[in-house]
């Protein structure tokens, strides 16, 4: 009788463990300032989740995603993170777009020793905050890698177009101003002449004085760091004042909707981690799958980044054969896969152990007259040479 009871208990326990899902928490800015990226990431996760579960889930169990909205605010991110870890009891955490919210949760993350496969948060203080966390995998390049990619492109233009003089226009908020002195110093160290460094108020639409100053400085490249709302007013002012410049190059977090259809956009350059037109098999497969599920395609690179994030985590769990954090970390560290962004492996960054994409993953593109963003650098990914307007 005792043996029967014991057998019954064991069978029940084993059946419940087979049925229970592996839970992954996704902390994203689904509202607030970062919601465009957050919603794009959510779609990427949903697409990956479909594919993973259709292929049998992880460890023979379904994968379950629990989304939480950090509201793009640290004060909301902390309770939501703690809720996912302690109430929902997720096995792993993914997501993370904003740097401020990511730092705010670094305390509880270390307290609960949470496994974090993080897609965003590029600011260097995040790297400091997680430097000693053994389960922190960072997919997005750190901000210094972003600048390294821009500098490489400009050096290429110096060789091919004899670009020497750079004029910098930057918005006076954190996005534009962060590290601006280091940027100027790095350009100078690389042998460029920084002929203008001018602040502007984002959204003001008043670029008259700035462009006049740039005209007097005669730059080869006008490098602007601002938001989507600044793109069109700046391009308009440049056209009106007939500023002769080889390349207008901007790095807004997103470009204005329909900007590509405006004639002023032609030859304007920018930086992206991915474009729907990225010419690799994985990107084409992602675009096709995304269109099938959502009916359209996004240009937000957080969608494929989230997709890659969950797919690689699921693969690592399967290879580990359990949800044991050390085993999964060891397998995720060995990741070597082709993605829409190019190959993904984890290597050390300046301060963290597991850094995914680096400077080489960024693409410089130009808008063309065919209403498209076309990669122009690095040369291995380029579909055309840079159009130089000088």
């Amino acid at each position: 009788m005792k043996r029967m009871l014991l057998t019954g208990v064991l069978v029940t326990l084993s059946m419940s463990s087979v049925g229970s899902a592996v839970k992954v928490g996704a902390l994203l800015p689904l509202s607030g300032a970062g919601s465009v990226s957050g919603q794009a990431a959510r779609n990427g996760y949903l697409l990956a989740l479909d594919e993973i579960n259709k292929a049998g889930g992880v460890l023979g169990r379904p994968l379950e995603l629990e989304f939480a909205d950090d509201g793009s605010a640290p004060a909301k991110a902390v309770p939501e993170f703690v809720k996912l870890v302690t109430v929902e009891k997720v096995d792993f955490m993914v997501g993370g777009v904003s740097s401020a919210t990511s730092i705010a949760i670094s305390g509880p993350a270390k307290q609960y020793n949470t496994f974090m496969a993080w897609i965003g948060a590029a600011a260097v203080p995040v790297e400091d905050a997680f430097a000693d966390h053994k389960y922190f995998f960072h997919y997005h390049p750190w901000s210094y890698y972003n600048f390294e990619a821009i500098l490489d492109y400009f050096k290429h233009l110096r060789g091919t177009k004899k670009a020497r003089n750079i004029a910098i226009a930057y918005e006076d908020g954190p996005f534009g101003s962060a590290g601006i002195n280091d940027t100027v110093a790095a350009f100078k160290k690389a042998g460029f002449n920084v002929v203008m460094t001018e602040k502007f108020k984002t959204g003001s639409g008043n670029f008259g004085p700035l462009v006049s100053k740039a005209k007097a400085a005669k730059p080869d490249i006008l490098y602007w760091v601002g938001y989507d709302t600044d793109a069109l007013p700046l391009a308009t002012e440049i056209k009106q004042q007939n500023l002769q410049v080889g390349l207008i190059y901007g790095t807004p977090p997103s470009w204005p909707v329909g900007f590509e259809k405006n004639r002023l956009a032609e030859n304007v350059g920018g930086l992206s981690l991915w474009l729907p037109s990225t010419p690799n098999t994985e990107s084409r497969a992602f675009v096709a799958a995304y269109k099938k599920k959502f009916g359209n395609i996004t240009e937000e690179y957080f969608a494929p980044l989230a997709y890659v994030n969950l797919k690689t985590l699921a693969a690592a769990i399967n290879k580990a054969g359990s949800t044991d954090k050390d085993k999964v970390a060891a397998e995720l560290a060995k990741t070597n896969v082709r993605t829409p962004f190019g190959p993904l492996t984890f290597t050390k960054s300046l301060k963290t152990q597991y850094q995914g994409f680096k400077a080489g993953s960024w693409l410089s593109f130009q808008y063309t007259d065919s209403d498209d963003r076309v990669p122009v650098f690095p040369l291995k990914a380029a579909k055309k040479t840079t159009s130089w307007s000088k």
Partner: protein
Amino acid sequence: MSKATTLPAAPVTRSARTPDFTFGKLLPLLIFFAVALIFPFLPFGDRREFLLQIGFFTLVAGTMALSWDILARSGQVSLAHAAFYGLGAYSYALLMKAGLPWLAAMPLAALIAGLFSLLLGMVTMRLSGMYFAIATLAFTEVVRTVIQNLPESVAGGATGILVPALLGGNSRQQYFFALLVLLLTVGVSLAVRLTRLHHAFAAIRQGEETARVLGVSVVRYKLLAFFISSVLAALAGVLYAGKTFFLNPLETFSLANSIAPLTTSIFGGLYTTLGPVLGATVLRIAEELLHNIVKNGYLVVYGLVLILSILWLPRGVIGLLRRGRHGGDL
């Protein structure tokens, strides 16, 4: 212009100070603190840690709202609360960076914010209403810009600055410490309400000229209101900094940090001690419930609830509790 004088220095009897004060009016506050005190020990099971985090930020929001209300009692509708909150947070971060122990850094940070409030108060003394609000809003922008443009090695520039965890990151201790700060704020608010300051602030709010005729030193009391309010807001800023480990100018000095205490106070019940505290608590609970019920677009519903409440409850939640009876709220 007549020379402003202070209120009569004659001893103020209990009845003269608090004609409508009864112990029963303190009861809701006592109940609130009793519940807040046992809150971390309630059997919430797995939700305990999560609710502790929610509780912490609710206490910070309550401190902010009540500190704003103290200033509003003197007729000054300020939009500079984000500045004092941020000044407290940044001063704390920099003092900690300089090696001060946190117990010394915290009051010093609050004092620094208080001194800045005196500067602002002196500059805006002649302004009122919308002009005053705009001036305080501009002050916040100025402080943000200055901090953002300090060398990155000093205050982290536009990128931001890391802050050591408050009380070693122990969430229960952090909660009780935030409760202590709210208790201090409530104590200050009651002191304002139950002394001659209440009459002075109320007189100024109803008309500075009238207050002067009554012998109230308008300048002195307005500055005092500013100082008290900013010191308490700065303490809330310190709590925030120690909890989130990171400050950047855009988020710390965000307009939302000035607007939230204003709406919370109006929602809870203006010019009272219980109102803003209750407002912060009810709003946080409502937000959390809506978040769970209306997964997408809960903020829209939350905003609608807030607008309707302000429209239909002119005396706030406190008015709902004490329907039909005007005045005399603590």
